């Protein structure tokens, strides 16, 4: 096998003639490790869209030994831990120099052992569970963590809605939901608030009972950090049952599904996320317009985004993730996995979702989150403010 890789690398070096157009010294493989089916499939696809768009914007990287074409190899981990090892192993065997993904912390952690053994650096794009990077030296992350996001939302709930009693709703068995709800509860209680929490089993569609429990419990804010499928059930049923209490959630709710569900209702739905479409900085605006054009040009990609061209936060993060990978390749000035591993810690990149600098454990140092509210008339996001942790 080792001889085989050596041979493949040698072959790649002798391939200038086959490259398209400009002089290319060969190909560097970047692995995409995302769920395309299973409960997280929808979010995974939107993240992958960001990566493919970034590839269309920047298909090559220039190293001292020449310009290399980036080859994306995508694999579906079906958002389940027992499929993770073979999916991760496929990327390693395909010769990925660096891997992007995965949406969902569980599958990322499940694959960390395989990436570590093969010496491949992996960049978690939107997996916010702290355990993804703790104890996994080669796993880096460009989004903020649950502890940060939970506390930010708790501060926002108190500052914005002056809520004293909160109700959290999380999906039983989903470590993202339960983790975020836990940190929100801790932060909210630390600030003198009162929290009652409930969990619902996978496959639930009827949330009326939960919403009514919240209202009967006198909650002034409902915090439901669930996946998009349950989010739209919660929103439509909250509207149907005339719930007036404001609803809040984490980054998973930053998607067109929520806008569509909230359209025409008088619900107040606010979300903390990594990126805001309305962000007027040139970098973000250019990305948004470019991505929308690219998306509308391809009906299949439009379908993967839920049939509309609203930019999900994970798409923006996917874009930044790809660019960070290119930065790493440039800094290491080689496609060798060990070289990239050595320099990864000091890669920095001014991304669409803000400055990315890696702190301890390989987590990006992020100290503020965008807070957005839904505009229910024309189903768009309204930028509220950038929220840090207020003591």
């Amino acid at each position, binding site marked *: 096998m080792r001889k085989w890789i050596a041979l493949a690398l040698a072959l790649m070096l002798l391939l200038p003639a086959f490259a398209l157009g400009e002089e290319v010294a060969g190909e560097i493989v970047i692995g995409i490790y995302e769920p*395309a089916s299973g409960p997280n499939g929808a979010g995974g696809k939107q993240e992958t869209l960001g990566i493919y768009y970034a590839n269309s914007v920047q298909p090559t990287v220039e190293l001292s030994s020449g310009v290399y074409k980036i080859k994306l190899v995508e694999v579906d981990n079906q958002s389940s831990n027992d499929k*993770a*090892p073979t999916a991760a192993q496929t990327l390693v065997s395909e010769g990925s120099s660096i891997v992007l993904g995965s949406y969902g912390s569980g599958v990322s*952690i499940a694959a960390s052992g395989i990436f570590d053994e*093969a010496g491949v650096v992996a960049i978690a794009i939107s997996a916010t569970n702290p355990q993804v990077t703790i104890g996994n030296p080669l796993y880096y992350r460009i989004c903020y963590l649950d502890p940060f996001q939970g506390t930010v939302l708790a501060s926002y709930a108190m500052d914005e809605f002056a809520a004293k009693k909160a109700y959290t709703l999380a999906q039983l068995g989903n470590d993202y939901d339960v983790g975020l709800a836990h940190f929100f509860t801790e932060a909210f209680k630390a600030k003198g608030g009162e929290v009652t929490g409930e969990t619902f089993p996978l496959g639930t569609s009827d949330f009326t009972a939960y919403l009514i429990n919240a209202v009967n419990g006198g909650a002034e804010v409902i915090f439901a950090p669930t996946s998009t499928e349950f989010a739209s059930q919660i929103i439509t049923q909250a509207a149907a049952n005339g719930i007036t209490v404001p609803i809040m959630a984490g980054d998973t709710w930053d998607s067109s599904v929520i806008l569509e569900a909230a359209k025409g209702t008088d619900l107040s739905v606010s979300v903390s996320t990594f990126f805001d479409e309305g962000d007027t900085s040139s970098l973000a605006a250019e990305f948004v317009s470019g991505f929308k054009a690219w998306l509308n040009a391809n009906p299949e990609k439009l379908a993967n985004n839920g049939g509309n061209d609203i930019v999900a936060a994970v798409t923006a993060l996917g874009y930044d993730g790809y660019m960070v990978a290119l930065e790493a390749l440039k800094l290491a000035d080689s496609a060798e996995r060990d070289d990239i591993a050595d320099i990864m810690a000091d890669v920095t990149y001014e991304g669409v979702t803000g400055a990315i600098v890696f702190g301890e454990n390989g987590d990006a140092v992020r100290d503020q989150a965008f807070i957005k509210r839904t505009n229910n008339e024309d189903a768009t996001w309204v930028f509220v403010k950038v929220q840090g942790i207020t003591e």
Partner: protein
Amino acid sequence: MKAFKLSIAFLLALAAATLLFFSFQAKDSLPQLLERMDPHQAALQDAQMQKARDRVLDSFAEGNRERTLRNLDRYTGGFSDSLVMDSRTGFELFFYENGPSLSALGMFLLVAATALTGLVFSRQGKWRRAALPVVLIAALYAGVYILENMVGGSSMLMTVLKKGAIYALVAVSMNLLNGFTGLFSLGQAGFMLIGAYIFAIFTIPVESRPQVYQYYAGGLIQFEMPTLVAMVLAGLGAAFFAWLIGLPVLRLKSDYLAIATLGFAEIIRAVFQYDGLGPITNGSNLLRRFPTFQTALFPFAVAGVSIALIALLIHSTYGRSFKAIRDDEVAAEAMGINLYRHKQMAFVISSFFAGIGGALLAMYQTTVQAAAFTSAMTYEILLIVVIGGMGSLSGSVMASFLFVAASEWWLRFLDNETMMGSFRVPLLRSGFRMVAFSVVIMVVVLFYRQGIMGDRELSIARLTRWLGRRGKGGRDG
């Protein structure tokens, strides 16, 4: 004739001894080897070379054989011109790189030699018949170990073989229930979950418990067990739950039993995810950092032993009474077989091995989360049993390797949009792999109801007959 066999046996033993001696000797000779390869210290001038060499020595000190070999390969390949490679160092380098495979080969030759001598001296038929299977099994295990060292422990082939071995054990345990006793149970994922959790809970090292049980202050259980003990405990735990749920459920007719066991698996999943049990099961969060196996031999060995036990059971008087219950319950009862007790035995044993399979899957995944053990996993295993052939152990084993390789390796290309020149191959986009796979399963379920082996076992006699028939063009069949 006897002398000839003995001399061959002796030769085999001799070869084995030399192989074992040299590979053992080369085991930790790498530092001296590097010195000898670079007599006039070329590394000191060339920083690049020095860095590559240090990397080799670091990973060697770390004991990570996989990475050491990779760095060594790059070092010898990249700087071959400034290294001196005389025959002796070349020989030692060869033995260092292929040490484990050669020692495995040595072990196999040793087994073959003993089998041969045993054959010559033994009288009873039983030993003579056992010689060939023993050698074949030794060849299989040595082959897996050699393959692993040749291809690299974390290659695609080995990952699929590891998962294949684990699914083989679980498929055989489900076949014992559905295929041999005629009990249609859909609770296999639930018992795997119990096994995986019990194994993980009792083997997480105490020092990493605070980090794993982050929301539950380090968790309730503050001790750890050796791996094998925990695996047996995992099986016993699953068996206990099987006995418990068996009390009410085993008297039910086949399709009610299916739904009741399916319901049981859902209940178990909800219980293990319950926040209240967090200090023990870590609620909805992951369990990780428990010991995992480094070589593919471990799952192959555990699965091998378990499947052998199940095979022994099936060919015993109890196995025959299970098959009687499958064929005709009324007649079996009339022949004095207590239906309830025998069904309970089959159910508990099958769950015991499903628990061990769950523990192996936990080690394979390096993480355990109840969310993964859904009814979809039970359906997957059931389909493996059907493809292999209900009532055939060798069928289930073959089918699980085929199933895992096909669904998670060979058919993956169906998910990626491939371009033939400028023409985009239609249909190929993410999700198509699973569609193609489920169509294949429907075809098997509908038209090849017997599956690969039907209810026949793969025996050496049948294999030679089959190969013979292929050779003669299969005329006289």
